[in-house]
Protein backbone atom coordinates (compact mmCIF):
# COMPACT_ATOMS: atom_id res chain seq x y z
CA UNK A 1 0.00 0.00 0.00
CA UNK A 2 2.79 2.33 0.95
CA UNK A 3 4.33 2.01 -2.48
CA UNK A 4 1.18 3.10 -4.28
CA UNK A 5 0.83 6.30 -2.29
CA UNK A 6 4.43 7.26 -2.83
CA UNK A 7 4.62 9.82 -5.59
CA UNK A 8 6.19 8.70 -8.83
CA UNK A 9 9.68 9.95 -9.44
CA UNK A 10 9.67 12.54 -12.21
CA UNK A 11 10.73 11.11 -15.56
CA UNK A 12 14.44 11.56 -16.04
CA UNK A 13 15.43 13.77 -18.95
CA UNK A 14 16.46 11.89 -22.04
CA UNK A 15 20.04 10.71 -21.88
CA UNK A 16 22.33 12.60 -24.19
CA UNK A 17 24.24 10.73 -26.87
CA UNK A 18 27.57 9.68 -25.50
CA UNK A 19 29.17 10.85 -22.28
CA UNK A 20 29.20 14.58 -23.02
CA UNK A 21 27.27 17.04 -25.08
CA UNK A 22 28.84 20.33 -25.97
CA UNK A 23 27.20 23.60 -26.65
CA UNK A 24 28.38 23.68 -30.22
CA UNK A 25 28.11 27.39 -30.79
CA UNK A 26 30.42 28.06 -27.86
CA UNK A 27 32.78 25.12 -28.33
CA UNK A 28 36.42 26.18 -28.10
CA UNK A 29 37.41 25.01 -31.56
CA UNK A 30 34.88 27.37 -33.05
CA UNK A 31 36.62 30.41 -31.66
CA UNK A 32 38.28 31.69 -34.80
CA UNK A 33 41.46 33.67 -34.45
CA UNK A 34 41.42 36.35 -37.10
CA UNK A 35 44.77 37.24 -38.67
CA UNK A 36 46.26 40.52 -37.56
CA UNK A 37 48.57 41.17 -40.48
CA UNK A 38 48.18 41.40 -44.24
CA UNK A 39 50.72 38.97 -45.70
CA UNK A 40 50.58 40.40 -49.18
CA UNK A 41 54.03 40.07 -50.75
CA UNK A 42 55.04 43.31 -52.38
CA UNK A 43 58.36 44.84 -53.29
CA UNK A 44 57.15 48.30 -52.30
CA UNK A 45 56.09 47.23 -48.81
CA UNK A 46 59.23 45.19 -48.44
CA UNK A 47 61.54 48.08 -49.33
CA UNK A 48 59.56 50.32 -47.01
CA UNK A 49 59.87 47.79 -44.23
CA UNK A 50 63.57 47.31 -44.84
CA UNK A 51 64.09 51.06 -44.88
CA UNK A 52 62.07 51.43 -41.68
CA UNK A 53 64.02 48.64 -40.03
CA UNK A 54 67.30 50.19 -41.11
CA UNK A 55 66.18 53.55 -39.82
CA UNK A 56 65.11 52.01 -36.53
CA UNK A 57 68.42 50.21 -36.31
CA UNK A 58 70.27 53.43 -37.02
CA UNK A 59 68.20 55.30 -34.46
CA UNK A 60 68.89 52.61 -31.91
CA UNK A 61 72.58 52.81 -32.64
CA UNK A 62 72.53 56.57 -32.40
CA UNK A 63 70.71 56.29 -29.09
CA UNK A 64 73.24 53.77 -27.82
CA UNK A 65 76.06 56.14 -28.85
CA UNK A 66 74.37 59.05 -27.22
CA UNK A 67 73.79 57.02 -24.06
CA UNK A 68 77.41 56.04 -24.13
CA UNK A 69 78.50 59.65 -24.47
CA UNK A 70 76.29 60.63 -21.61
CA UNK A 71 77.54 57.76 -19.49
CA UNK A 72 81.12 58.58 -20.46
CA UNK A 73 80.88 62.23 -19.52
CA UNK A 74 79.10 61.22 -16.34
CA UNK A 75 81.79 58.71 -15.50
CA UNK A 76 84.53 61.21 -16.29
CA UNK A 77 82.81 63.75 -14.12
CA UNK A 78 82.55 61.25 -11.30
CA UNK A 79 86.08 60.00 -11.88
CA UNK A 80 85.10 56.42 -12.42
CA UNK A 81 86.32 54.04 -15.11
CA UNK A 82 84.97 54.78 -18.52
CA UNK A 83 82.15 52.41 -19.51
CA UNK A 84 82.66 49.99 -22.37
CA UNK A 85 82.01 51.50 -25.75
CA UNK A 86 78.87 50.02 -27.33
CA UNK A 87 79.20 47.35 -30.04
CA UNK A 88 76.88 47.59 -32.95
CA UNK A 89 74.74 44.42 -33.05
CA UNK A 90 75.42 42.33 -36.13
CA UNK A 91 72.35 40.46 -37.39
CA UNK A 92 72.58 36.85 -36.31
CA UNK A 93 73.54 34.53 -39.10
CA UNK A 94 72.08 31.06 -38.92
CA UNK A 95 74.18 28.20 -40.09
CA UNK A 96 71.66 26.48 -42.30
CA UNK A 97 70.72 25.89 -45.90
CA UNK A 98 67.93 28.46 -45.94
CA UNK A 99 68.11 31.50 -48.14
CA UNK A 100 64.88 33.38 -47.64
CA UNK A 101 63.66 34.66 -50.99
CA UNK A 102 63.02 38.37 -50.66
CA UNK A 103 61.18 40.37 -53.29
CA UNK A 104 63.47 42.07 -55.77
CA UNK A 105 62.91 44.73 -58.36
CA UNK A 106 61.58 43.54 -61.69
CA UNK A 107 64.25 42.99 -64.32
CA UNK A 108 62.44 40.50 -66.51
CA UNK A 109 61.62 41.63 -70.04
CA UNK A 110 58.06 40.32 -69.84
CA UNK A 111 57.19 42.40 -66.81
CA UNK A 112 58.71 45.52 -68.28
CA UNK A 113 56.87 44.93 -71.53
CA UNK A 114 53.63 44.46 -69.63
CA UNK A 115 54.19 47.71 -67.77
CA UNK A 116 54.88 49.46 -71.02
CA UNK A 117 51.72 48.02 -72.59
CA UNK A 118 49.36 48.66 -69.74
CA UNK A 119 50.81 51.90 -68.46
CA UNK A 120 48.93 53.22 -65.48
CA UNK A 121 46.93 50.07 -64.95
CA UNK A 122 49.95 48.32 -63.53
CA UNK A 123 50.20 48.92 -59.81
CA UNK A 124 53.34 47.01 -59.13
CA UNK A 125 55.81 44.62 -60.73
CA UNK A 126 58.43 42.59 -58.90
CA UNK A 127 60.05 39.20 -58.71
CA UNK A 128 60.23 36.85 -55.78
CA UNK A 129 61.53 33.31 -55.46
CA UNK A 130 62.14 33.31 -59.20
CA UNK A 131 58.51 34.10 -59.95
CA UNK A 132 57.30 37.12 -61.87
CA UNK A 133 54.46 39.02 -60.29
CA UNK A 134 52.44 41.82 -61.84
CA UNK A 135 49.73 43.52 -59.85
CA UNK A 136 47.20 45.38 -61.95
CA UNK A 137 44.20 47.52 -61.20
CA UNK A 138 41.10 45.49 -60.57
CA UNK A 139 39.16 47.08 -63.42
CA UNK A 140 41.93 46.38 -65.90
CA UNK A 141 42.33 42.65 -65.37
CA UNK A 142 40.67 41.70 -68.65
CA UNK A 143 42.88 44.12 -70.51
CA UNK A 144 45.95 42.69 -68.83
CA UNK A 145 44.95 39.11 -69.59
CA UNK A 146 44.29 40.06 -73.21
CA UNK A 147 47.71 41.64 -73.47
CA UNK A 148 49.36 38.58 -71.96
CA UNK A 149 47.53 36.26 -74.27
CA UNK A 150 47.70 38.12 -77.55
CA UNK A 151 50.86 40.18 -77.49
CA UNK A 152 53.31 38.18 -79.66
CA UNK A 153 56.28 38.83 -77.42
CA UNK A 154 54.39 37.60 -74.34
CA UNK A 155 52.14 34.81 -75.61
CA UNK A 156 50.91 33.28 -72.38
CA UNK A 157 48.60 30.70 -73.90
CA UNK A 158 47.38 28.86 -70.85
CA UNK A 159 45.74 29.93 -67.64
CA UNK A 160 47.22 27.31 -65.36
CA UNK A 161 45.59 28.32 -62.13
CA UNK A 162 43.42 30.94 -60.61
CA UNK A 163 42.81 31.36 -56.94
CA UNK A 164 42.10 33.96 -54.31
CA UNK A 165 43.09 34.77 -50.75
CA UNK A 166 41.11 36.46 -48.02
CA UNK A 167 42.80 39.34 -46.15
CA UNK A 168 40.40 40.42 -43.40
CA UNK A 169 42.97 42.71 -41.81
CA UNK A 170 43.49 44.82 -44.91
CA UNK A 171 41.87 48.23 -45.04
CA UNK A 172 41.16 49.03 -48.69
CA UNK A 173 40.70 45.56 -50.09
CA UNK A 174 39.47 42.18 -48.88
CA UNK A 175 40.71 39.65 -51.40
CA UNK A 176 43.58 39.14 -53.74
CA UNK A 177 42.88 37.13 -56.89
CA UNK A 178 45.88 35.61 -58.64
CA UNK A 179 46.09 34.32 -62.19
CA UNK A 180 48.95 31.96 -62.94
CA UNK A 181 49.67 32.15 -66.63
CA UNK A 182 51.88 29.75 -68.51
CA UNK A 183 53.56 30.24 -71.83
CA UNK A 184 54.07 26.77 -73.24
CA UNK A 185 56.02 27.95 -76.25
CA UNK A 186 58.42 30.07 -74.19
CA UNK A 187 58.48 27.97 -70.97
CA UNK A 188 57.68 30.96 -68.80
CA UNK A 189 55.26 31.71 -66.04
CA UNK A 190 53.68 34.90 -64.83
CA UNK A 191 51.43 35.77 -61.94
CA UNK A 192 48.83 38.48 -62.38
CA UNK A 193 47.28 39.80 -59.22
CA UNK A 194 44.35 42.03 -58.48
CA UNK A 195 43.11 43.27 -55.14
CA UNK A 196 39.37 43.49 -54.80
CA UNK A 197 37.23 44.83 -51.97
CA UNK A 198 34.24 43.02 -50.55
CA UNK A 199 31.32 43.09 -52.96
CA UNK A 200 33.32 44.03 -56.03
CA UNK A 201 32.51 41.91 -59.09
CA UNK A 202 35.58 41.45 -61.30
CA UNK A 203 35.31 40.50 -64.94
CA UNK A 204 35.42 36.79 -65.70
CA UNK A 205 38.34 35.43 -67.71
CA UNK A 206 36.21 32.75 -69.31
CA UNK A 207 36.07 34.36 -72.74
CA UNK A 208 39.84 34.59 -73.01
CA UNK A 209 40.73 31.44 -71.13
CA UNK A 210 37.89 28.86 -71.03
CA UNK A 211 39.79 27.00 -68.32
CA UNK A 212 38.83 29.77 -65.91
CA UNK A 213 35.27 28.43 -65.86
CA UNK A 214 35.56 25.95 -63.03
CA UNK A 215 38.34 27.82 -61.27
CA UNK A 216 36.14 30.89 -60.93
CA UNK A 217 33.26 28.77 -59.77
CA UNK A 218 35.56 27.34 -57.13
CA UNK A 219 36.62 30.82 -56.02
CA UNK A 220 32.98 31.81 -55.76
CA UNK A 221 32.20 28.66 -53.84
CA UNK A 222 35.10 29.00 -51.44
CA UNK A 223 35.46 32.75 -50.98
CA UNK A 224 32.25 34.27 -52.29
CA UNK A 225 33.71 36.44 -55.04
CA UNK A 226 31.30 36.65 -57.95
CA UNK A 227 32.54 37.14 -61.48
CA UNK A 228 30.79 39.16 -64.14
CA UNK A 229 29.91 37.55 -67.49
CA UNK A 230 30.55 34.06 -66.22
CA UNK A 231 28.42 31.43 -68.00
CA UNK A 232 27.43 29.51 -64.88
CA UNK A 233 28.16 31.22 -61.58
CA UNK A 234 27.08 28.46 -59.20
CA UNK A 235 28.71 26.56 -56.41
CA UNK A 236 30.87 23.68 -57.53
CA UNK A 237 32.27 21.74 -54.58
CA UNK A 238 29.83 22.55 -51.82
CA UNK A 239 26.12 21.84 -52.12
CA UNK A 240 23.87 24.51 -53.57
CA UNK A 241 22.38 25.39 -50.21
CA UNK A 242 25.62 25.66 -48.27
CA UNK A 243 25.86 28.62 -45.95
CA UNK A 244 28.98 30.70 -45.80
CA UNK A 245 32.20 30.61 -47.76
CA UNK A 246 34.60 28.10 -46.24
CA UNK A 247 37.94 29.62 -47.14
CA UNK A 248 37.22 32.98 -45.59
CA UNK A 249 39.17 33.52 -42.45
CA UNK A 250 36.11 34.04 -40.28
CA UNK A 251 34.77 30.60 -41.16
CA UNK A 252 35.54 28.03 -38.45
CA UNK A 253 37.71 25.09 -39.37
CA UNK A 254 35.18 22.62 -38.12
CA UNK A 255 31.94 23.04 -40.01
CA UNK A 256 28.55 23.39 -38.43
CA UNK A 257 26.99 20.12 -37.48
CA UNK A 258 30.08 18.17 -36.53
CA UNK A 259 29.46 16.14 -33.43
CA UNK A 260 31.99 16.56 -30.72
CA UNK A 261 30.96 13.65 -28.60
CA UNK A 262 33.73 11.58 -27.14
CA UNK A 263 33.04 7.94 -27.62
CA UNK A 264 35.87 6.60 -25.53
CA UNK A 265 35.06 4.98 -22.25
CA UNK A 266 36.33 7.20 -19.52
CA UNK A 267 39.08 5.50 -17.59
CA UNK A 268 39.00 6.50 -13.93
CA UNK A 269 36.93 9.60 -14.61
CA UNK A 270 39.96 11.60 -15.68
CA UNK A 271 38.37 12.82 -18.84
CA UNK A 272 35.21 13.79 -17.12
CA UNK A 273 37.14 15.87 -14.61
CA UNK A 274 39.22 17.54 -17.30
CA UNK A 275 36.22 18.28 -19.43
CA UNK A 276 34.32 19.73 -16.48
CA UNK A 277 37.26 21.94 -15.61
CA UNK A 278 37.65 23.11 -19.16
CA UNK A 279 33.96 23.73 -19.52
CA UNK A 280 33.92 25.68 -16.27
CA UNK A 281 36.73 27.91 -17.49
CA UNK A 282 35.07 28.53 -20.84
CA UNK A 283 31.56 28.84 -19.49
CA UNK A 284 30.27 26.08 -21.70
CA UNK A 285 26.98 24.47 -21.03
CA UNK A 286 28.17 20.93 -20.37
CA UNK A 287 25.47 18.59 -19.27
CA UNK A 288 26.46 15.69 -17.12
CA UNK A 289 25.45 12.23 -18.26
CA UNK A 290 22.63 10.59 -16.44
CA UNK A 291 23.79 8.51 -13.52
CA UNK A 292 22.38 5.00 -13.48
Amino acid at each position, binding site marked *: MAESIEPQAPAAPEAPMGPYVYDYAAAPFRQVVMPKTVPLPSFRTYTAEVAAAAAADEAKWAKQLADFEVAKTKAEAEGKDAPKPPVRAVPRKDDNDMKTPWPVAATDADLLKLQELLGDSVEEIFEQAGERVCQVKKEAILEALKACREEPSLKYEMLADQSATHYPAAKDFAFSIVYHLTSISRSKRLRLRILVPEGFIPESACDLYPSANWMEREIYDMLGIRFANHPDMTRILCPEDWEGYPLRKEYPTVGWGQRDID*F*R*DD*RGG*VLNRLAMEKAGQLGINLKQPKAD
Partner: protein
Amino acid sequence: MSFLRTLIPFDIIGGLTVTGRYFGKVFFSANRKKIRANLAHFTQEYPEVPVKLQPRYRGRLTLLKDEQGEIKCVCCLACEKICPTQVITIEKGKKEGRKMPFPVRYDFEMERCIFCEFCVESCGFDSIILNHQFELAGYNREDFSIGMDGLGHNMFNPSPVGRHSVAED
Protein backbone atom coordinates in the same frame (compact mmCIF):
# COMPACT_ATOMS: atom_id res chain seq x y z
CA MET B 1 45.66 -7.23 -97.86
CA SER B 2 43.92 -5.29 -95.12
CA PHE B 3 40.78 -7.15 -96.06
CA LEU B 4 42.54 -10.44 -95.39
CA ARG B 5 43.95 -9.08 -92.16
CA THR B 6 40.45 -8.23 -91.06
CA LEU B 7 39.22 -11.69 -91.95
CA ILE B 8 41.95 -13.60 -90.19
CA PRO B 9 42.11 -12.30 -86.61
CA PHE B 10 45.81 -12.54 -85.82
CA ASP B 11 45.45 -9.78 -83.23
CA ILE B 12 42.82 -11.68 -81.32
CA ILE B 13 44.82 -14.89 -81.56
CA GLY B 14 47.82 -13.02 -80.14
CA GLY B 15 45.77 -11.86 -77.15
CA LEU B 16 44.35 -15.32 -76.63
CA THR B 17 47.89 -16.72 -76.67
CA VAL B 18 48.97 -14.45 -73.84
CA THR B 19 46.02 -15.30 -71.66
CA GLY B 20 46.15 -18.98 -72.58
CA ARG B 21 49.81 -19.15 -71.65
CA TYR B 22 49.05 -17.73 -68.24
CA PHE B 23 46.17 -20.13 -67.81
CA GLY B 24 48.45 -23.06 -68.46
CA LYS B 25 51.18 -21.74 -66.20
CA VAL B 26 48.89 -21.14 -63.27
CA PHE B 27 46.86 -24.28 -63.86
CA PHE B 28 49.90 -26.49 -63.70
CA SER B 29 51.68 -24.66 -60.89
CA ALA B 30 49.05 -23.19 -58.60
CA ASN B 31 48.08 -26.26 -56.72
CA ARG B 32 51.17 -28.37 -56.97
CA LYS B 33 54.04 -26.32 -55.68
CA LYS B 34 55.11 -25.64 -52.17
CA ILE B 35 54.27 -22.35 -50.55
CA ARG B 36 56.78 -19.55 -51.13
CA ALA B 37 58.13 -21.29 -54.19
CA ASN B 38 58.29 -19.28 -57.37
CA LEU B 39 54.60 -19.31 -58.12
CA ALA B 40 53.04 -18.23 -61.37
CA HIS B 41 50.05 -16.70 -59.65
CA PHE B 42 50.26 -13.56 -57.59
CA THR B 43 47.66 -14.28 -54.94
CA GLN B 44 48.78 -14.47 -51.34
CA GLU B 45 46.80 -17.05 -49.41
CA TYR B 46 46.48 -14.61 -46.60
CA PRO B 47 45.06 -16.14 -43.44
CA GLU B 48 46.88 -19.41 -43.98
CA VAL B 49 50.17 -17.95 -45.13
CA PRO B 50 51.25 -14.97 -43.00
CA VAL B 51 51.80 -11.67 -44.76
CA LYS B 52 55.39 -10.55 -45.12
CA LEU B 53 55.65 -6.89 -44.18
CA GLN B 54 58.55 -4.55 -44.75
CA PRO B 55 60.55 -3.53 -41.66
CA ARG B 56 59.43 0.10 -41.91
CA TYR B 57 55.74 -0.76 -42.03
CA ARG B 58 53.57 1.71 -40.15
CA GLY B 59 51.02 -0.07 -38.03
CA ARG B 60 49.45 0.71 -34.67
CA LEU B 61 51.06 3.04 -32.15
CA THR B 62 52.67 1.15 -29.24
CA LEU B 63 54.35 2.34 -26.06
CA LEU B 64 57.68 0.72 -25.23
CA LYS B 65 59.09 -0.37 -21.89
CA ASP B 66 62.73 -0.63 -21.07
CA GLU B 67 64.55 -3.64 -19.58
CA GLN B 68 63.26 -2.99 -16.09
CA GLY B 69 59.69 -2.95 -17.31
CA GLU B 70 59.53 0.80 -16.84
CA ILE B 71 57.67 2.94 -19.35
CA LYS B 72 60.18 4.81 -21.45
CA CYS B 73 57.92 7.79 -22.12
CA VAL B 74 58.91 10.94 -20.22
CA CYS B 75 55.93 13.11 -21.19
CA CYS B 76 57.73 15.64 -23.35
CA LEU B 77 54.44 15.98 -25.30
CA ALA B 78 56.29 16.20 -28.62
CA CYS B 79 54.11 13.50 -30.15
CA GLU B 80 50.95 15.14 -28.89
CA LYS B 81 51.95 18.43 -30.44
CA ILE B 82 53.09 17.11 -33.80
CA CYS B 83 50.19 14.75 -34.39
CA PRO B 84 48.27 16.12 -37.40
CA THR B 85 44.98 14.66 -36.23
CA GLN B 86 45.41 15.11 -32.47
CA VAL B 87 44.81 11.51 -31.50
CA ILE B 88 47.26 11.38 -28.58
CA THR B 89 46.38 12.66 -25.13
CA ILE B 90 49.01 12.57 -22.39
CA GLU B 91 48.66 13.48 -18.76
CA LYS B 92 51.83 14.07 -16.77
CA GLY B 93 52.32 12.59 -13.36
CA LYS B 94 54.86 11.60 -10.76
CA LYS B 95 55.88 8.20 -9.61
CA GLU B 96 57.86 7.07 -6.63
CA GLY B 97 61.48 6.39 -7.42
CA ARG B 98 61.49 7.90 -10.86
CA LYS B 99 63.20 11.15 -11.69
CA MET B 100 61.62 11.78 -15.05
CA PRO B 101 57.94 12.56 -15.42
CA PHE B 102 55.70 9.61 -15.80
CA PRO B 103 52.63 9.38 -18.04
CA VAL B 104 49.58 8.84 -15.89
CA ARG B 105 47.49 8.64 -18.96
CA TYR B 106 48.51 7.98 -22.55
CA ASP B 107 45.38 7.76 -24.67
CA PHE B 108 45.35 6.98 -28.33
CA GLU B 109 42.26 7.26 -30.53
CA MET B 110 42.92 4.92 -33.40
CA GLU B 111 39.71 5.79 -35.23
CA ARG B 112 41.24 9.06 -36.33
CA CYS B 113 44.88 7.98 -36.58
CA ILE B 114 46.32 8.30 -40.08
CA PHE B 115 49.47 6.25 -39.44
CA CYS B 116 51.90 8.94 -40.57
CA GLU B 117 54.60 8.07 -37.99
CA PHE B 118 55.24 11.75 -37.17
CA CYS B 119 54.94 10.92 -33.48
CA VAL B 120 57.69 8.34 -33.64
CA GLU B 121 59.82 10.74 -35.64
CA SER B 122 59.40 13.49 -33.10
CA CYS B 123 60.11 11.29 -30.08
CA GLY B 124 63.54 11.96 -28.71
CA PHE B 125 63.53 9.05 -26.28
CA ASP B 126 62.59 6.18 -28.63
CA SER B 127 59.69 5.41 -26.35
CA ILE B 128 57.03 4.77 -29.01
CA ILE B 129 56.95 2.78 -32.21
CA LEU B 130 54.39 1.87 -34.80
CA ASN B 131 54.14 -1.89 -34.73
CA HIS B 132 53.40 -4.13 -37.70
CA GLN B 133 49.71 -4.69 -37.16
CA PHE B 134 47.38 -4.00 -40.00
CA GLU B 135 44.32 -5.94 -38.91
CA LEU B 136 42.83 -3.30 -36.68
CA ALA B 137 39.13 -3.65 -37.30
CA GLY B 138 36.70 -3.43 -34.43
CA TYR B 139 33.02 -3.84 -33.77
CA ASN B 140 32.38 -0.62 -31.89
CA ARG B 141 33.99 2.73 -31.39
CA GLU B 142 35.26 1.93 -27.93
CA ASP B 143 37.59 -0.63 -29.49
CA PHE B 144 39.48 2.17 -31.17
CA SER B 145 40.18 4.12 -28.03
CA ILE B 146 43.27 2.62 -26.48
CA GLY B 147 44.85 3.56 -23.18
CA MET B 148 47.50 2.33 -20.80
CA ASP B 149 45.13 0.06 -18.91
CA GLY B 150 42.67 -2.42 -20.26
CA LEU B 151 43.03 -6.14 -20.50
CA GLY B 152 44.92 -7.32 -23.55
CA HIS B 153 43.96 -4.23 -25.46
CA ASN B 154 46.25 -1.47 -24.41
CA MET B 155 49.13 0.62 -25.58
CA PHE B 156 51.72 -2.05 -24.77
CA ASN B 157 50.21 -5.19 -26.26
CA PRO B 158 49.22 -5.69 -29.85
CA SER B 159 45.53 -5.56 -30.64
CA PRO B 160 43.84 -8.91 -30.16
CA VAL B 161 42.23 -8.89 -33.61
CA GLY B 162 45.48 -8.89 -35.54
CA ARG B 163 46.52 -12.48 -35.20
CA HIS B 164 48.25 -12.81 -38.51
CA SER B 165 50.17 -9.61 -38.82
CA VAL B 166 52.59 -9.22 -35.93
CA ALA B 167 56.09 -9.20 -37.28
CA GLU B 168 59.04 -10.46 -35.34
CA ASP B 169 61.13 -7.41 -34.56
